[in-house]
């Protein structure tokens, strides 16, 4: 197992270097110049432009800029945002818990609904329930997040008034961040009302963000259940006269879960990508919204720093999934 972990870790290094190159290049490949954007319609004099270029280091050759970026990265310094002039690392981590909290709730929603739905569809293969699950998951998978989010807001917040329109918590509560997780911080503050408000605010965005992963999980569960149900040992188990509950829960589901766990792990990247849109719709103060702002302002340090941090987090999660996989299924280790 130790060797397995080492190999996996070693594999991360080239990937990570690749990520830094992509992150560095991505924002620079986009047309547009942060300094000109800052100046707006007024324009900027050539001298001032040159002065700012030099100040931000944009006048140096790209390889030098990249090298500086790498050096900073090794010291845990991703530079300062061009817009707010604050350190990128601080800006990222003050917002990241909001994204993580939303993603976890979305994932929980997707698993809690998606897993049983997939299992039921597999058991009732070819029946109405199966067709319904397959149909709904196909629709869910192809749902444009932006449209879906606004639709839910208009119906549940606008028409029915059941859920708040946007934000993370009612403006009445100003909870001092400790963990950055609003649900936890409100409990730490011992403020029950604030906790309920935070939960209330999570409902719609978690549903919107969780819709696509839900569809993926339901479909994956269904197909791997079907696969396992066709295996000889399941037939044997049935032949032994085990109850069908036992056959499904113990013999089938456990084995089917292996591929489902992988799929759930893969959703992390998808969740972070979906968070960008969801956060924009729901004014959710996470990294998604922060990145969108940074990209539109061509805030080079924030974009490249943010991308590297997101990639790093996704890589770590995937590593953990791989390891978990190795634990569930020892054959993988070899």
């Amino acid at each position: 197992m130790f060797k397995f972990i080492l190999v996996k870790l070693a594999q991360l290094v080239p990937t990570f270097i690749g990520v830094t190159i992509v992150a560095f290049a991505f924002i620079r490949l986009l047309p547009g110049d942060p300094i000109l954007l800052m100046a707006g319609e007024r324009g900027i004099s050539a001298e001032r432009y040159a002065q700012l270029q030099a100040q931000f280091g944009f006048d140096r050759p790209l390889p030098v800029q990249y090298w500086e970026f790498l050096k900073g990265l090794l010291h845990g310094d991703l530079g300062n945002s061009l817009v707010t002039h604050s350190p990128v690392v601080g800006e990222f981590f003050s917002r990241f818990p909001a994204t993580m909290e939303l993603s976890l709730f979305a994932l929980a929603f997707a698993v809690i609904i998606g897993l049983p739905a997939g299992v039921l569809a597999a058991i009732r293969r070819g029946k109405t329930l199966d067709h319904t699950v397959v149909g709904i998951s196909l629709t869910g998978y192809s749902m444009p997040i932006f449209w879906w989010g606004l639709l839910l807001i208009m119906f549940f917040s606008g028409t029915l008034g059941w859920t708040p329109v946007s934000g993370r918590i009612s403006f009445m509560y100003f909870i001092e961040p400790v963990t950055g997780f609003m649900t936890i911080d409100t409990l730490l503050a011992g403020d029950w009302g604030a906790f309920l408000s935070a939960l209330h605010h999570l409902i719609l965005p978690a549903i919107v963000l969780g819709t696509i992963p839900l569809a993926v999980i339901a479909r994956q569960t269904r197909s791997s259940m079907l696969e396992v149900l066709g295996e000889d040992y399941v037939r044997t188990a049935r032949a032994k006269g085990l109850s069908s509950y036992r056959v499904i829960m113990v013999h089938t589901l456990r084995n089917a879960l292996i591929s489902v766990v992988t799929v759930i792990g893969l959703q992390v990247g998808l969740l972070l990508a979906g968070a960008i849109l969801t956060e924009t719709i729901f004014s959710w103060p996470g990294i998604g919204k922060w990145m969108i702002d940074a990209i539109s302002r061509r805030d080079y340090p924030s974009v490249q720093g943010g991308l590297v941090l997101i990639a790093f987090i996704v890589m770590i999660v995937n590593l953990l999934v791989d390891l978990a996989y190795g634990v569930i299924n020892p054959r993988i280790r070899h």
Partner: protein
Amino acid sequence: MKKTLLAAGVAAMMMGATPVMAKTLVYCSEGSPEGFDPAIYTTSTTFDATSETVFNMLVQFKPGTTELEPAIAKSWEVSDDGLSVTFHLRDDVKFQTTDFFTPSRPLNADDVIWSFERQMDKGNPYYKLANGNFEYFNAMSMGELIKSIEKVDEHTVKFVLTEPNAPFLANLAMPFASIHSQEYEQQLIDEGKPQQANQQPIGTGPFQFVAYREDAAIRYQANPDYFRGKQPIDNLVFAITPDAQVRYQKLMAGECQVMPFPNPSDVKAMKQNDAIQVLQEPGLNVAYLAYNTQEKPFDQPEVRRALNMAINKQAIIDAVFQGAGEVAKNPIPPTMWSYNDAVKDDPYDPEKAKQMLADAGVKNLKMDIWAMPVQRPYMPNARRTAELMQADLAKVGVDVNIVTYEWGEYLKRASAVDRKGAVILGWTGDNGDPDNFMGTLLSCAGVGGANRSQWCYKPFDDLIQQARTLSDQAERAKLYEKAQVIFKQQAPWDTLAHSTVFMPIRKEVTGYVINPLGLHSFEGVDIQE
């Protein structure tokens, strides 16, 4: 209503305030402030959260107008040669007392001097901290304009200028000229954390800063020591809501009481909503099509005027602005002093346009029209505007090719003297002075920069240069009126539109006034229970 009362009550308990009926106003702002030091940023979102709430300037714009009125300075005089301006400060202005700062003295001349020195003195710790990035101060050439600032006595400050400059006073009403507390900032420097001034601002304004949650909300409370008296509302919350549709939903749900920048297409429905009133005003802006007056055949005024006559501007207002705007004839908006209403616009007349082009010897003209890739307050959809122009110009035999670039690139390329074609662009005034439009956008000095028509015309330039040095507003107005006549004859632009600004607020909100400069202020705003 019940909800609002409940919210106000709970908010009061949260704030630990004694009156149960604490009034809280929630403003659904469109974005996060970049920071809380108005001197180092340039966006109105940041100014709304800083200079409009926490700070004051020496002078200010009278609410709803572009006229100057006293603020921290109760009066001022300009010397006869125009080279010095002396301000007499109020003696009852206190800096805010918060849980992170308690002032030991009221505002005096030192604070005023400090507020400018931090932007111009390379030795000032704040200058170093910001790397001299005081973009507005620099863009308004304040560093070159101010020779020195002298403390005459505790409550008198004299600015000595390098040349007479009439717009200088209006500049001092701009957010970058907010007055900071020297005592607070010096204290932060001594404690080794000067950057805190940008996170926890202290000013003299109507509201004092309480807390900020990134990208979520900013909380203020009424400043009890405000020199114009405590505000009628107790708490002010900026709920950061970037999506216009979501802001609208929140306004309807009563989750906020005021929202800026509605989608133009939602305005009609808002007006029909009983809970909402929609305030509206012509914006202090202009959208224009700037020819390159150094490119043939656009170097001939007749050709430019012919093209202007071929373009149906009213159709653009109807289709692109959905009626939320008016046709522009002058380079400055009608709400600005010195606007020359006697100027006659070139009428929409394709037949005459054709004739004029033929007379000028222009045949089979092919030209580029540039369409901005972004929506701006003065232009909801440049692409659509360009398409309408394309169709209009085709009718007079001009073949238009629409080009566009990414926004930063667009701004840069549009400035180039040898650029091909006419660009759609515009301007929102930032200090209400005509020089802020004509001097910035049409002077010879602006060629290759903000003067996108690359137009340098001496009779016009002489007038605006002269107007800049006079201190008598009536005399200045005469010169600007003349300049507008010349502008129309020479037609470096096709003046397209002045857009209308809409401000939906809930019915219970009173005292809100639209700021023509596009900022949002809550001084004097109240909520009727």
